[in-house]
């Protein structure tokens, strides 16, 4: 039993307390029982849900592991994380899914819902054992990290996943058009002499995949949209009634291709940072509902890997610990607290078809207490993630999680 005192529910002014029992919310403003934690006047919400994180297990634990990645997630206010399967080996076997879930349960951090590969080895040739993977606990299917070059294989996957009631998510870039691009293609890439990745690589692939949704009627989730044009294609598809959802990442909202002028591989990410016009368009998509949810694409690498030159360094930015403070600080006024929390809690649950997160009695006791007012400097040395560097190092952000509770147990407490 756990009671959190001195907390506010969103939209309310009075300080309240919540008591949890056996992993669920027992009720509000009950006599304090069990362990009592002071919420310090913070705002309580259902714990955040991350649909897109690379936790690097199995096989790439020099970059991240379940313990560091799920601790980082809890520190970022997340109670649930969908991990990507582009590991070594690829998560394409039911036994691997079971092992990951079992290992994560023992950690007492954020909940792990592993995504499994759509195709064996993520090679895009032969479907993985999707039914067995679902039985083992796979949350969704994706070949993220790779692109689904063979449209026929993706079509078959969509048909099969539909029969299982499962979502497929795609990293939508045309690999041929993307070629060896390391940043957005345009005047800046030409000036810097860096190979460019054109907006059309994303838009063309999204257009193709939307036709497959129309053909199969299957649920498709488009990951990390980065271009205005691809977002417009999703908007049109939704207007046609196609069962498509999409996510946008905070780094595509807050950074642009201009960051590459530093030649720092910290800013090398796939899909690439685009233009300010794209970022503005994506924010518009959040406001008008075209974008279903936020996801971070937390993609840790070692410092040595990210200190290589721009051609050689791997793609990815790791910032699951900063996502809420970053969004709240930059866009809190535009979006409002209710909308922002929806994009990071209920919205990802809707994408997955999971029960709506709730603060009502009987709901799972997955909670975050947020300090919406106090500014703190981003200090990567304090990250729980193994990737202790950040594009936002030294920036002052507010909205830091004070406390994250998962299943009625403390998964993170600031200052611990």
């Amino acid at each position, binding site marked *: 039993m756990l009671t959190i005192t001195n907390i506010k529910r969103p939209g309310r002014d009075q300080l309240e307390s919540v008591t949890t029992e056996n992993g669920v919310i027992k009720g509000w403003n009950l006599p304090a029982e069990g362990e009592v934690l002071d919420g310090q006047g913070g705002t309580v919400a259902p714990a955040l849900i991350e649909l897109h994180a690379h936790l690097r297990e199995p096989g790439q634990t020099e970059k991240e592991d379940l313990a560091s990645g799920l601790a980082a997630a809890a520190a970022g206010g997340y109670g649930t994380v969908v991990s990507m399967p582009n590991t070594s080996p690829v998560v394409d076997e039911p036994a691997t899914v079971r092992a990951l879930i079992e290992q994560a349960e023992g950690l007492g951090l954020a909940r792990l819902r592993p995504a499994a590969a759509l195709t064996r080895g993520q090679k895009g040739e032969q479907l993985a054992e999707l039914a067995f993977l679902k039985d083992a606990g796979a949350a969704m299917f994706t070949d993220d990290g790779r692109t689904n070059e063979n449209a026929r294989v993706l079509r078959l996957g969509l048909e099969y996943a539909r029969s299982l009631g499962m979502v497929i998510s795609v990293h939508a870039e045309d690999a041929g058009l993307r070629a060896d691009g390391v940043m957005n293609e345009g005047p800046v890439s030409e*000036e810097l*002499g860096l190979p460019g990745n054109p907006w059309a690589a994303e838009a063309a692939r999204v257009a193709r995949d939307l036709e497959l949704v129309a053909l199969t009627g299957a649920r498709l989730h488009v990951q990390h949209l980065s271009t205005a044009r691809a977002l417009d294609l999703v908007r049109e598809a939704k207007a046609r009634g196609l069962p498509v959802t999409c996510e946008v990442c905070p780094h595509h909202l807050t950074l642009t291709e201009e960051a590459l002028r530093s030649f*720092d591989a910290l800013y090398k990410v796939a899909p690439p940072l685009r233009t300010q016009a794209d970022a503005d368009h994506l924010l518009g998509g959040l406001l008008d509902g075209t974008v279903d949810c936020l996801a971070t694409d937390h993609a840790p690498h070692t410092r040595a890997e990210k*200190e290589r*030159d721009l051609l050689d360094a791997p793609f990815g930015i790791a910032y699951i610990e900063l996502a809420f403070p970053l969004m709240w600080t930059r866009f809190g006024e535009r979006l409002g607290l209710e909308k922002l929390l929806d994009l990071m809690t209920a919205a990802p649950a809707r994408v997955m078809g999971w029960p709506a997160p709730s603060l009502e009695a009987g709901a799972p006791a997955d909670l975050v207490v947020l300090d919406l007012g106090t500014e703190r400097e981003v200090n990567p040395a304090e990250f729980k993630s193994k990737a202790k560097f950040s594009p936002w190092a030294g920036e002052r952000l507010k909205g830091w999680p004070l406390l994250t509770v998962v299943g009625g147990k403390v998964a993170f407490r600031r200052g611990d």
Partner: protein
Amino acid sequence: MTVPTPPRPRTLLDFQGWTQERLTALLDNADTMNQVLDRPVKKVPALQGLTVCTAFFENSTRTRISFELAARRMSADVVSFAAGASSLSKGESLRDTVEVLTAYKVDAYIVRHPASGAAHLVARYSGKPVINAGDGRRAHPTQALLDAYTIRQEYGSLEGKKVAIIGDIRHSRVARSNAELLPKLGAQVVLCGPATLLPAGLAGQPGVTVTSDPREAVRGAHAVMALRLQQERMNGGYLASLQEYAGRYQVNEALLREAESGAIVLHPGPMNRDLEISSEVADGPRSRILKQVENGQAVRMSVLYHLLVGRA
């Protein structure tokens, strides 16, 4: 006599922040260096006691020799670091490499690297003066300086001169550096190549136009530069055939009839004879290709002096 000098970039990574005055002073100083090279004893003590490291992460014997001779003629100690693709595959970061070299008390770096921006990273990691000897597709500033110097030698000034650069613009750091430098010195640059090798994003810089029509590019030009065509561009699908490329874009006598009557011909080397340039032109009276090589050493001496000693 010593006079106080304003702070200047102690790096030459590209031409950002370089004014026409400083560039002109640098080229003027190269005249002095050329006089040194005409003496029986081709050595001055300007860089005595300084250690210069040529850090080449990509093969280039000619550029490395030009820089090493330039540094030695200025009495610097020179060490060479050469790393092929092998050290990258060993996973050593660029930062580790630079920090080790800096621990040897290297005073300045001359960097060649296959990745755009790598020279910037060396400057950041070392905190030392860095001369970019070519980074990816981005910049090769001493090549552009020696091109400017060679044109100036011919005409006395670059003001109002038209320079046509013909070839694989997309992958060329020489084209990018010239497009950045020559307009600062008053010249007009026309970049020309097959559309697949001519990124539209380069148009719009001051003093730079682009065209895929070689006759239009060369018309009225005072200098015509042919770029080396990497034959692997065939595999990238950029070209249908080398024959078609040569048939349209080769710098030869027929094409040069469109240029100014006294127009000179440049090439950054090494040449694919009778591909991007005809042998007749390369060996003919318009050619300043060997002059470029000669001037390269003087220009690099001037750059070293400018960055490491001062008052250029």
